[in-house]
């Protein structure tokens, strides 16, 4: 009936989901998440939570820093203190979700189809998504991203249970090594993602401005760093664009 539509017929969503799942298996973050969440599982063992609780914690929160806070402070701090600390540690999700959605939504996308990509957005899934999504057809991106995110979240859930049972046997140096996987892989994969000036500038400025603002102890330092360094990079990008278009 609708033979006149210009767009090619989209392949099934499950096909794109599987492609995303496959992409998660070959991603360096699959192994990073495994290592990192073994550490988080071990931590939850030390603080006396159950394996079911830690899996639920991983699936619902899906943010390593926030989980470290919940696990290590729930027993000692007040509920308000825990909630505020968790919330302050997760500000990064606002710009990440906000920059992801325009990439995966198209004219016919329903809001509820974007809820899962929204929840699956964590720093690792976002970084891999930004790298891989441009080569995926727009209609298939949401399903692809879901596959990618579910693959990594599954790895994290399995690893957190494994870490729970390994906890007693983990030497401190190995535990430190597992925790160091996250910053190392973020550093390399972000550097290999940088293709345009604005990305490199935002990244470099963020590395420099971040510690400076953190040292001022003004609070919300990630938010301020993002706004200042990101806006500065954007400004330089606009100025260069204006110059190349201008006379």
């Amino acid at each position, binding site marked *: 009936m609708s033979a006149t539509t210009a767009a090619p017929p989209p392949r099934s969503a499950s096909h794109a989901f599987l492609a995303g799942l496959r992409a998660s298996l070959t991603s360096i973050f699959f192994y990073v998440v495994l290592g990192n969440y073994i550490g988080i599982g071990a931590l939850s063992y030390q603080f006396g939570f159950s394996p079911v609780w830690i899996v639920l914690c991983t699936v619902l929160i899906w943010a390593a820093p926030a989980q470290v806070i919940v696990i290590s402070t729930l*027993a000692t701090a007040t509920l308000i203190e825990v909630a505020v600390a968790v919330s302050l540690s997760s500000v990064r999700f606002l710009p990440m979700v906000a920059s992801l959605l325009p990439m995966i939504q198209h004219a016919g996308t329903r809001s509820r189809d974007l809820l899962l990509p929204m929840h699956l*957005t964590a720093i690792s899934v976002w970084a891999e998504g930004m790298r891989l999504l441009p080569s995926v057809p727009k209609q298939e991106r949401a399903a692809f991203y879901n596959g990618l995110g579910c693959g990594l979240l599954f790895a994290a859930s399995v690893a957190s249970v494994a870490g729970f049972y390994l906890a007693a046997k983990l030497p401190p*140096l190995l535990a430190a*090594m597992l925790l160091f996987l996250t910053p190392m892989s973020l550093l390399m994969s*972000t550097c290999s993602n940088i293709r345009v000036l604005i990305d490199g500038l935002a990244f470099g400025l963020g590395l420099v401005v971040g510690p400076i603002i*953190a040292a001022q102890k003004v609070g919300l330092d990630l*938010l301020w760093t*993002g706004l200042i*360094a990101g*806006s500065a990079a954007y400004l330089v990008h606009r100025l260069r664009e204006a110059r190349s278009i201008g006379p």
Partner: protein
Amino acid sequence: MSAALTEMGPYLALILVGFLPNEVWRVLGFVLVRGLDEDSQVVVWVRAVATATLAAVLAQLILSSQGALAAIPVWVRIGASCAGLLAFMIARRSVFVGVLAGEAVLVAGGAIWAP
């Protein structure tokens, strides 16, 4: 366990003070850009802000580490990051080689200088 936990149980506490205060940022990001175009200037700017935020998270993870990583001196952590980055460049931008080199330097440094 603490009063907070015995009061409401670990599962309710997880949802109220773990899940909700974390998810609120994802939902805010969702609400703010729903319907915006990929190439619009606001989205280009937001993406730069997200990249800078990621860099700040990275700096924080290396400089003020938590848990077992905190036992390793900060200059070993910085040195390991630089070594990893250098190996990454030499190995033609191989993430795998870079991560491996960084970890190797961290373990070597940790074995020597960690208390």
